[in-house]
C-alpha cells in the first residue's frame, strides 16, 4: 500500500504546486517540492533492511478484470535500487535547482513537470502490470518532452524536445506491441506471472519478435546506438533536468526494462548477442564522439550514452547465466550483472555531480564552451574539487567508485571471452578490445573536462560575466554526490550487501541464493589480475592520446564519420512531413460536397458490401406489428417535408422542413411508446435548429449549383444507393435474428441497478463507462469549438512562435 501511495504522492503534490505558487511567487516553492522526494526517499529507505532479508512487497488495486489489467505494485531489490536513485537524486536535483533557476522563470510549471516525471518514473519501476508500466513509461517521455522544451521560445529546445519525443515514443509503441505479444502467448500482463510461466513458450514464433520489440523500446529510451541521437539534443533542457532525467533516471528506464526482462528473455542467444553487442558498440561510439565535443554539456551527453552502453553490455553478458541453470558457471557469469547494478549506482553519483558542476560553470560564467574556459581552479576551488572527483571516477581511477565498477567490468569481459556458450570465441576478444579502447577514450574526455576547464590559462576577455565561486546552496548537492563517490569506494560492500545482492535475486529468480554467492567488492585483486593491467593500460594510452589530441583529431573530419545519423533523422522527418502533406492534399479538397461523397461511398461499400456478402437481404414480415393510421400519417408528413426540401427557395424554409423531419421522428417515438427517446429527440431538434439559425450568418448565399451532367448522375447514383441500402438494412434487421436478444437482461433492472427506468439504468449503470466517456468526449468537443473560434489566428496577427 505504501508503495502504491508513493507513486501517487508526486502527482498529488503536483496539483498543489500551482496553487501554492500563485501565493508564493518565489523560489521558496522549491522547498515545498523538495519535501516530496525527501519524504519518499526516507520511506523507501526504511524498506532496505527487510528487502535485504529477501522479502518482497506486492499490492494490488483491482482495476479492469475483463482485460487482466490491475494496478499492481511490486517492490523487490531491483525496483528498490531504482526508486532510491529516483528519489535520492531527485532530492539533490531539486535542492540544486532552487539556486540554479532564476526567479523570473516560471518555476511553478517547472516543478509541476518535475513532479510529474518523478511520479511516472516511480510508476515504471514499481508496476508489475505491463499495461500500467507502459502508461507510466510514455508519461516519462511526455514529461521529458515538456522539460526539454521548458525554454520553449528557443528553436533548438523545441527541436530537441520533438526529437526525443519522436524517438522514445516510437520505441514505446514497439514495446507496447511486444507486451501485447507476450500477453497473447502467456495470457497474463503480470511480469511475475510471465516470468514464472515463460519456459513453456520459448518456442513460440512470437517469442523472438516480442523480444526484439521490447528491446527496441529499451534501446530508444536508454539512448543506445543507433537511437542515441536524441540525447545530445535533449541537453537544451535546464541543467538540473539534464542531470536528473537525462543522466540519472529516465535514460536508465531502458536498462531497468532489460534487467526486469532478463528472467523472461535472458538465456537466449539473440538476447545475449543483441544486448551485449549493442551495449559495447554504444560504449565505444559514445566515448569516441564525446572526445571531439567542445560544449561541456554535449560532452557529458555523449559520455552518458557511452556509460549507458557499458551498463547495457554488462546486462547482456550477465544474461548468459540463465542458460545453464544452477551451476558454478552461471554464478560466474552472473557477476557481470552484479557489476552492472553497481556501475548503475556509481554512474548516477559521479555523472550527477559532473552535470551540476557544468551547470555551475554555465551559471557563473555564461558559457560552457571549453575553448573559452580555462584556469577556473584559482577562483572556483570547491567546484574544481567536485569536478576532479567526478571525472576521475568516470575515468576509472582510484580512490573513487568508478574504479571499482570499471575493474569489475573488465573482469566480466575477460570472463566472457572464456564463455563456451553460444560460440563466443573471437567475438569475446573483439568485445574486450573495443571496450578497452572505449575506456581509453573515456579517460581522455574525463581529462578534458578537468584540465581544459579548470587548469590552463584563464581567458577573461572571452567571458561575459565576472567570475566567482558559486553560491553555497548550489554547491551542497554536488558535494553530497562527491562524498558518495569517495564513500562508496571505501565502503562498497554496504551497497553490495543491502542493495545489489537482493536485486540479484530479482533478476535471477531461478538461481536461488545467487546474491549471496557474489564475491565481495574489493579494490585490490593482486598483480595477477588482468583487470588491473587493463586499467594501467587505459591510463598510459589515455595520457598519450590526451597530449597528442591535436595530432589525431583529424580523424573526425574523415568522410564516413561526418556522415551521421542526425542528418538521416532530419531528412526522414522532412520526407515524412512532405509525404503526409502531399497525401493529405490529395483528398482534402476543401469542398463539403467532396467529403460527403467520401462518407457516403464508404457507407455504400462497407454496409452494402456486408449485406451482400453475408446474404442477409432476406426479409421476414411475419413478426411485424400491423401499421396503424397514425404511422401512415407521420410517414406521409415526413415524405412531403423531405421532398419539399429539394425545391425550397430559401435556407430558412429548408431548415424548418428539416425540423419537421426531426419532430416527426419524435412523434414516432411517442407512437411506439418510447417517452425518453421522444423527449430527447424533440429537445435535440430544438437546440440544433437554434444552432442552424445561428450559423446562417456565416453561410454563403443559397443559390442553385450548376454542375455538369456527369456529376449529377454520380450524385444521383450515390443518393439512390444510400437510400436503398438503408431501406434494405432496416428490413433485414427485422428479418434476421442472428443473435439472442439481450434485452431480457435489462428487464431485471430494478434488482440489479435499483431503478425502474430501463433506459436510464443502462445509461447510468450497466453501460456507465460508455456514458462517462461520452461525457468526456462531449466536453472535449465543446472546448475544441471554443478554442478553435476564440484562439484562431486573425489575418493581421503574426505567428508568434518563432523568436
Amino acid at each position, binding site marked *: 500500500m505504501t508503495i502504491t501511495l508513493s507513486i501517487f504522492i508526486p502527482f498529488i503534490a503536483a496539483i498543489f504546486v500551482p496553487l501554492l505558487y500563485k501565493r508564493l511567487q518565489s523560489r521558496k516553492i522549491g522547498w515545498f517540492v523538495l519535501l516530496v522526494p525527501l519524504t519518499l526517499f526516507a520511506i523507501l529507505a526504511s524498506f532496505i533492511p527487510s528487502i535485504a532479508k529477501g522479502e518482497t512487497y506486492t499490492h494490488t*488495486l*483491482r*482495476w*479492469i*478484470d475483463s482485460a487482466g489489467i490491475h494496478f499492481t505494485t511490486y517492490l523487490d531489490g531491483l525496483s528498490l535500487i531504482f526508486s532510491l536513485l529516483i528519489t535520492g537524486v531527485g532530492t539533490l536535483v531539486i535542492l540544486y535547482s532552487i539556486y540554479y533557476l532564476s526567479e523570473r522563470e516560471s518555476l511553478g510549471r517547472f516543478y509541476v513537470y518535475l513532479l510529474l516525471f518523478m511520479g511516472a518514473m516511480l510508476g515504471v519501476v514499481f508496476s508489475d502490470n505491463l499495461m500500467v508500466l507502459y502508461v507510466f513509461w510514455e508519461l516519462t517521455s511526455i514529461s521529458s518532452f515538456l522539460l526539454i522544451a521548458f525554454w520553449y521560445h528557443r528553436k533548438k529546445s523545441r527541436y530537441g524536445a520533438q526529437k526525443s519525443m519522436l524517438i522514445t515514443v516510437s520505441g514505446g509503441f514497439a514495446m507496447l506491441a511486444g507486451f501485447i505479444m507476450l500477453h497473447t502467448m502467456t495470457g497474463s500482463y503480470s511480469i511475475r506471472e510471465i516470468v514464472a510461466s515463460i519456459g513453456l513458450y520459448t518456442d513460440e514464433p512470437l517469442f523472438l519478435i516480442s523480444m526484439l520489440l521490447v528491446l527496441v523500446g529499451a534501446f530508444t529510451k536508454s539512448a543506445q546506438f543507433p537511437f542515441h541521437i536524441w540525447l545530445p539534443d535533449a541537453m537544451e533542457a535546464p541543467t538540473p533536468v539534464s542531470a536528473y532525467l537525462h543522466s540519472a533516471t529516465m535514460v536508465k528506464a531502458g536498462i531497468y526494462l532489460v534487467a526486469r526482462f532478463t528472467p523472461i528473455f535472458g538465456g537466449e542467444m539473440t538476447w545475449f548477442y543483441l544486448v551485449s553487442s549493442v551495449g559495447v558498440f554504444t560504449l565505444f561510439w559514445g566515448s569516441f564522439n564525446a572526445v571531439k565535443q567542445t560544449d561541456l554539456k554535449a560532452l557529458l551527453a555523449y559520455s552518458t550514452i557511452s556509460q549507458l552502453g557499458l551498463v547495457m553490455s554488462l546486462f547482456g553478458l550477465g544474461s548468459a547465466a540463465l542458460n545453464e541453470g544452477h551451476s558454478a558457471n552461471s554464478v560466474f557469469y552472473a557477476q557481470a550483472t552484479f557489476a552492472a547494478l553497481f556501475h548503475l549506482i556509481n554512474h548516477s553519483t559521479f555523472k550527477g555531480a559532473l552535470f551540476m558542476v557544468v551547470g555551475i560553470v554555465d551559471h557563473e560564467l555564461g558559457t560552457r564552451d571549453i575553448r573559452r574556459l580555462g584556469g577556473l581552479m584559482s577562483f572556483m576551488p570547491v567546484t574544481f574539487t567536485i569536478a576532479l572527483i567526478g571525472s576521475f571516477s568516470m575515468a576509472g581511477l582510484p580512490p573513487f567508485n568508478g574504479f571499482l565498477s570499471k575493474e569489475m567490468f573488465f573482469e566480466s569481459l575477460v570472463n566472457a571471452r572464456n564463455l563456451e556458450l553460444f560460440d563466443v570465441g573471437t567475438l569475446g576478444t573483439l568485445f574486450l578490445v573495443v571496450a578497452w579502447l572505449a575506456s581509453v577514450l573515456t579517460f581522455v574526455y574525463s581529462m578534458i573536462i578537468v584540465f581544459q576547464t579548470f587548469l590552463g590559462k584563464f581567458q577573461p576577455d572571452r567571458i561575459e560575466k565576472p567570475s566567482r565561486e558559486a553560491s553555497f546552496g548550489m554547491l551542497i548537492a554536488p558535494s553530497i554526490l562527491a562524498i558518495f563517490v569517495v564513500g562508496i569506494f571505501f565502503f562498497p560492500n554496504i551497497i553490495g550487501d543491502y542493495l545489489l545482492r537482493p536485486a540479484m535475486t530479482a533478476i535471477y529468480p531461478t538461481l536461488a541464493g545467487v546474491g549471496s554467492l557474489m564475491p565481495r567488492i574489493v579494490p585490490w585483486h593482486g598483480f595477477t589480475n588482468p583487470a588491473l593491467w587493463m586499467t594501467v593500460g587505459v591510463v598510459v594510452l589515455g595520457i598519450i592520446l590526451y597530449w597528442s589530441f591535436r595530432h589525431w583529431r583529424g580523424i573526425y573530419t574523415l568522410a564516413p564519420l561526418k556522415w551521421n545519423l542526425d542528418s538521416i533523422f532530419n531528412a526522414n522527418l522532412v520526407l515524412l512531413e512532405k509525404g503526409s502533406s502531399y497525401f493529405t492534399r490529395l483528398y482534402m479538397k476543401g469542398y463539403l460536397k467532396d467529403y460527403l461523397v467520401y462518407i457516403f461511398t464508404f457507407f455504400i461499400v462497407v454496409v452494402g458490401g456486408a449485406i451482400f456478402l453475408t446474404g442477409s437481404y432476406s426479409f421476414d414480415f411475419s413478426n411485424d406489428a400491423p401499421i396503424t393510421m397514425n404511422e401512415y400519417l407521420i410517414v406521409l408528413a415526413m415524405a412531403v417535408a423531405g421532398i419539399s426540401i429539394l425545391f425550397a427557395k430559401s435556407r430558412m424554409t429548408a431548415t424548418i422542413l428539416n425540423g419537421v423531419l426531426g419532430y416527426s421522428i419524435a412523434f414516432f417515438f411517442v407512437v411506439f411508446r418510447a*417517452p*425518453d427517446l421522444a*423527449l*430527447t429527440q424533440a*429537445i*435535440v431538434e*430544438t*437546440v440544433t435548429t*437554434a*444552432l442552424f439559425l*445561428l*450559423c446562417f*450568418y456565416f453561410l454563403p448565399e443559397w443559390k442553385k449549383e450548376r454542375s455538369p451532367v456527369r456529376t449529377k448522375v454520380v450524385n444521383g447514383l450515390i443518393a439512390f444507393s444510400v437510400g436503398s441500402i438503408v431501406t434494405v438494412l432496416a428490413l433485414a434487421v427485422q428479418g434476421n435474428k442472428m443473435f439472442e436478444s439481450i434485452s431480457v437482461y435489462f428487464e431485471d433492472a430494478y434488482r440489479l*441497478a*435499483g*431503478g*425502474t*427506468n430501463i*433506459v*436510464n*439504468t443502462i*445509461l*447510468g*449503470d450497466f453501460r*456507465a*463507462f460508455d*456514458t*462517462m466517456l461520452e*461525457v*468526456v468526449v*462531449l*466536453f472535449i*468537443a*465543446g*472546448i475544441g*469549438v*471554443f478554442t478553435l*473560434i*476564440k484562439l484562431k489566428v486573425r489575418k493581421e496577427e503574426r505567428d508568434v512562435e518563432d523568436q
Partner: protein
Amino acid sequence: MKINDVILQTVTKIVVFIILTFGVELFLSGHNNPGGGFIGGLVLSSAFVLLYLVHDIETVHKGIPFDFKKIAALGAFLAVGTGIGSVLFGKHFLTQAAGHFNLPVFGDTELSTVIVFEAGVALTVVGVVVTIISTISEDV
C-alpha cells in the same frame, strides 16, 4: 443589433422558469420515470438558448454570470469522479449504490449515487451546449 420584441420577451420571462423547473424535474425523475441527466441537461440548455435568442448576449451574461466552460468541466469531473469514488470504497470502477432513506419532508425517498453521475452528465451537456452556441455567436 438589438431586437425589441416585447411579446416574446414577456412570455420568455415566465416560460424560462417553467422550462428550468421542468428540466430539474426531468433530471430528478430519471431513475424511475422518463428523464435523466442527458435530457434534463438538454432542457436546461434550451432555456438558456431561448434567453440568448430573446435578449442579447451581454444582457444574459449579466444576469447569469457563470462561466459555462467551467460548468462543463465540473460536470466531466463529477462523472469521472464518481467512478473513482467507487474504487476508493474497494468496489469496481463506476459501481453505483442506492438505498432508501426516511427524510422528514419527503417521506420514504430513494437516494442513489447515480444522481451524482447524472448531475455530471447534465452539467456537461448544459456547459457544452451553451459554450458552443455563445462562442459561435460571439464570433460574429
